């Protein structure tokens, strides 16, 4: 298994605070059966400006440390990019790049409101050669309120990554419900931990991938395989999918 979304690198964003936590997280991941873990520190313009090269350098350093401790777990560089109007320039400059220098870019938007130009940014990034993976769609307020909004992102060709924590319910009932609805409809290409610590948000994905299988038979196979395609920069094919609005009855709002 590969965990494609984690804030495991110590001290460079709001993830692991120090090397101790980092090592604890590595051990948890190893125990969970994760073979490779992708370090995706935040890239937020003006707040966390961790360029791809910096992350890659940091990852190399940490790789050696893991080896010294005798743990067999591969660390791969990536970024979680907070998209805004500067993202396209940053992508062209190479400050933001896909995971493992592939074309797959892990992206996020603000939680509370969707920017008007969100789809335009995605479109321009794709023209520039990126493939967009939208991180934790189930956590965005606007998707929770109106999930059919996600159809626009499907149409643009986005892939979707759901947090294992959302499926466990650590962010609340609504988010869990949304996550399950997405899985049921097959709008889930990856399940990742989005681990920030060794506590509740730790790098574990095995149980939640199994849980997803109960909701949508056959999905666990895809969820395990897709990350391998991703790190090798191979095409990930998705079937036609669309979320249909439930007919609203007047007494059942």
């Amino acid at each position, binding site marked *: 298994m590969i965990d494609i979304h984690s804030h495991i690198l110590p001290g460079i964003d709001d993830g692991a605070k120090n090397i101790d936590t980092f090592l604890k997280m590595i051990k948890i991941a190893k125990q969970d059966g994760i073979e490779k873990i992708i370090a995706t520190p935040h890239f937020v313009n003006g707040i966390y400006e961790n360029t791809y090269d910096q992350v890659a350098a940091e990852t190399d350093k940490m790789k050696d440390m893991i080896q010294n401790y005798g743990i067999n777990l591969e660390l791969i560089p990536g970024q979680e990019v907070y998209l805004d109007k500067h993202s*396209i320039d940053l992508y062209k400059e190479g400050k933001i790049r896909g995971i493992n220098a592939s074309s797959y870019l892990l992206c996020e938007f603000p939680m509370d409101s969707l920017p008007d130009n969100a789809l*335009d940014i995605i*479109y*321009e990034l794709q*023209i*520039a050669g990126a493939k967009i993976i939208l991180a934790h769609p189930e956590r965005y307020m606007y998707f929770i309120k109106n999930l059919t909004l996600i159809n626009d992102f499907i149409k643009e060709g986005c892939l979707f990554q759901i947090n294992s924590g959302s499926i466990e319910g650590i962010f609340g009932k609504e988010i869990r419900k949304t996550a399950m609805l997405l899985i049921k409809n097959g709008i889930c290409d990856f399940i990742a931990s989005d681990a920030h610590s060794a506590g509740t948000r730790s790098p574990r994905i095995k149980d939640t991938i199994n849980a997803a299988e109960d909701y949508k038979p056959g999905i666990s196979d895809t969820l395990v395989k897709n990350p391998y395609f991703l790190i090798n920069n191979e095409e990930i094919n998705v079937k036609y999918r669309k979320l249909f609005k439930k007919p609203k009855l007047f007494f059942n709002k």
Partner: protein
Amino acid sequence: MLDLIVDKEPKSPISEAYRTIRTNIEFSSLDKEMKLILITSSGPQEGKSTISSNLALAMAQSGKKTLLIDCDLRKPTIHKKYKISNRIGLSNLLADGLKLSDAVFCFGKGIDILTSGTIPPNPSEMLSSNKMKTFLQEALKIYNRIILDSPPVNAVTDAQILATIADGVVLVVGSGVTEIDMAKRAKELLDKVKANILGVVLNKAESMGNKYGSNKYYYYYAEGEEKKRRKKKK
């Protein structure tokens, strides 16, 4: 690969229909050459951008140097049809004083595309500005044909403004989409500004070819793959 039928299946009956539209436009006026053509419709989602994208290609195929301009500065879609960037376009050209050669996308196949650019707060003012007129006059010196894609005429005034500049206007109506009253209203609005309406394109028409055999005629010559829909020129 483009998703435009004239490019993808140039021999299909639908592409043939586009060429018919092209010919009809060419022959719609004997005295004045139709160089600046505006495509509009009464409401949204009737197929303006699809028609203008394909028509531009069809015109380019006949050897005319063609410029396609996305004048829909509100909900632009031309760049998506051609899968090109929309970071610089018409609005930047008008507002920031860029040159046409800097803003235009040379697509090849005899066609250049000017996308809408950054969405401005004042599209109507921009389109009615003198700068827009001078820009079009300059462009007409370089291109044989210019096609303007515009917002729906019933919704906003942009298409009316452009209709006063254009040599001719093509109104697109979607079969089963456009309400008859809306189409009448669109014609009224265009007549008010003394627009030269060349004709109406009936889009999204269900093919009845299998029933009456009319399609067979096309297929005999066209060698295209079988399609369920075709477009007609009225």
